[in-house]
């Protein structure tokens, strides 16, 4: 299997994309450490993901705390014996526009979404360099490529992750440590379901609304993002570094009108005219 004998750390892996990623790594033979803040949810991921080819263990970590970063890498490496792959998946999303974003929200978003990937990656890359190589995958977002109103801190931090990925890729390219980033689109996770609940929208309504403008007419399953992360972490991507890979069903390539064509909106039939 692709990850036989490989040691993998996935942050924020007690639910959603992180949990799917940890389980897929384990199914392909890896020894996996997951982190998060909820031991109960971690136990579920371990129960669902273990008993396959690899293994999963949990280390509780709160990535809002800057003192957590170095000890986490040290403890994970201690548990695993080495570190081949780091997936910086933990993230926080505040639904607050520029005027509503509090200093606390801003600081928290910066800490979890930007500082944690930087300090964890730096500590991991030091080890990987000494080991002869490794792979780091950062989870950014389609909102790292284009912006949405009402979530300023999230868009800003996810844009930062794209550029952090490039800068770190260059710093470690000569050491055979690859650094890449995936930009998922809307994915069926507790984060999305929670947001809809908060807005008083049923899951069905929320998904139907999104289907109107999504090119693929559906949101992603967490597994679909996990498989992209696996590719970037695998030897199949041996010449891929500093790259940003969108896994968004085409949302980031469409303009603000999304998948709707002029024809659908009734503005114009197919035809020709002078170009703008």
């Amino acid at each position, binding site marked *: 299997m692709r990850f036989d004998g490989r040691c993998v750390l996935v942050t924020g892996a007690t639910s959603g994309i992180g949990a799917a990623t940890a389980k897929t790594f384990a199914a392909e033979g890896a020894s996996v450490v997951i982190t998060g803040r909820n031991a109960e949810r971690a136990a579920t991921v371990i129960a669902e993901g273990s008993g396959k080819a690899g293994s999963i263990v949990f280390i509780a970590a709160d990535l809002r705390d800057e003192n957590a970063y170095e000890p986490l890498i040290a403890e994970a490496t201690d548990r695993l014996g080495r570190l081949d792959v780091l997936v910086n998946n933990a993230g926080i999303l505040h639904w607050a526009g520029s005027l509503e974003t509090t200093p606390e929200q801003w600081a928290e978003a910066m800490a979890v979404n930007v500082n944690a990937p930087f300090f964890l990656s730096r500590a991991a890359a030091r080890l990987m360099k000494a080991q002869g190589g490794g792979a780091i995958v950062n989870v950014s977002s389609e909102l790292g490529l284009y912006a949405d109103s009402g979530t300023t801190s999230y868009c800003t931090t996810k844009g930062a992750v794209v550029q952090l990925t490039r800068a770190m890729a260059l710093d470690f390219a000569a050491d055979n440590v690859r650094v890449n980033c995936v930009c998922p689109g809307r994915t069926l996770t507790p984060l999305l379901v929670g947001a809809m609940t908060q807005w008083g929208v049923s899951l069905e309504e929320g998904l139907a609304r999104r289907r109107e403008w999504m*090119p693929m007419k559906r949101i992603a399953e967490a597994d679909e993002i996990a498989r992209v992360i696996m590719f970037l972490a695998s030897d199949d*991507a041996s010449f891929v*570094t*500093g790259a940003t890979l*969108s896994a968004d069903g085409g949302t980031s390539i469409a303009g603000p009108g999304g*998948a709707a064509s002029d024809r659908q909106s009734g503005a114009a039939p197919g035809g020709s005219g002078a170009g703008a």
Partner: protein
Amino acid sequence: MNFEGKAVLVTGGATGIGKATAMAFSDAGARVLTASRDAERGAAFAEEMRAAGRNIEFVACDLRDDGAPEALIAEAVRRLGRLDVLFNNAGIHHRFGTLETTNAHWAETMALNVGAVFMCSREAAAVMKDQGGGAIVNMASDLGIFAEPEKVSYCTSKAAVVQMTKAMALDLAPHNIRVIAIAPGDTFTPMIEHKIRTLGLSLEDGLRWLSAPVAMKRLAETEEIARAVLFLASDDASYVTGTTLSVDGGTTASGPGGQRPAAED
């Protein structure tokens, strides 16, 4: 990645990246048809593949000819019975600056690197739509993202491929057809070897010179590009469409100074 039962067409498939990709698809269980305008090399390639027990067929085809894309897709369906993956790999690279590029250079580059990619994709998409889905992978280049001097037609055509990929992805998403581009950096192919010889360099010196600005300090092997193409064409990439994947050892991530630390400037 498993392509058992899948039918794959690779253009420009008798050498370099195309050849490596055809072999990788075949190793993953696919039935593969490759096309190339060089009938002699193609025949030798087909014989080599047959001898190795690989399920790879060859058809001679010059995609610059009127009607060739349409005929090629029809031939692929005739031979393979269906079409699940199209890899638009064929391309031409004229190394001339703006003042030296002739109308013929320009027309040929646009015809092969842009026109034929569109026409092959359109014809393939019609087949894939009826089948219920498929994947089209377009060969872009790091020179479709940033530019280099004295390659104006190539840079322009590859940027067109990046944008065409987005536009086609939106048109074809409702039909469960994904369209993705790959943007390799310099890859160790016969084309690169030829370039090094043309410059009067030894292979070793030439590779060192070409690797200098690459963050990973080496060129890609054709197999590394092939594995990225397989991923993009596979069900592992089921939510990936319209985007361009750089497989360039960090070249696009760096500025014009390449991997030189700023402190050395």
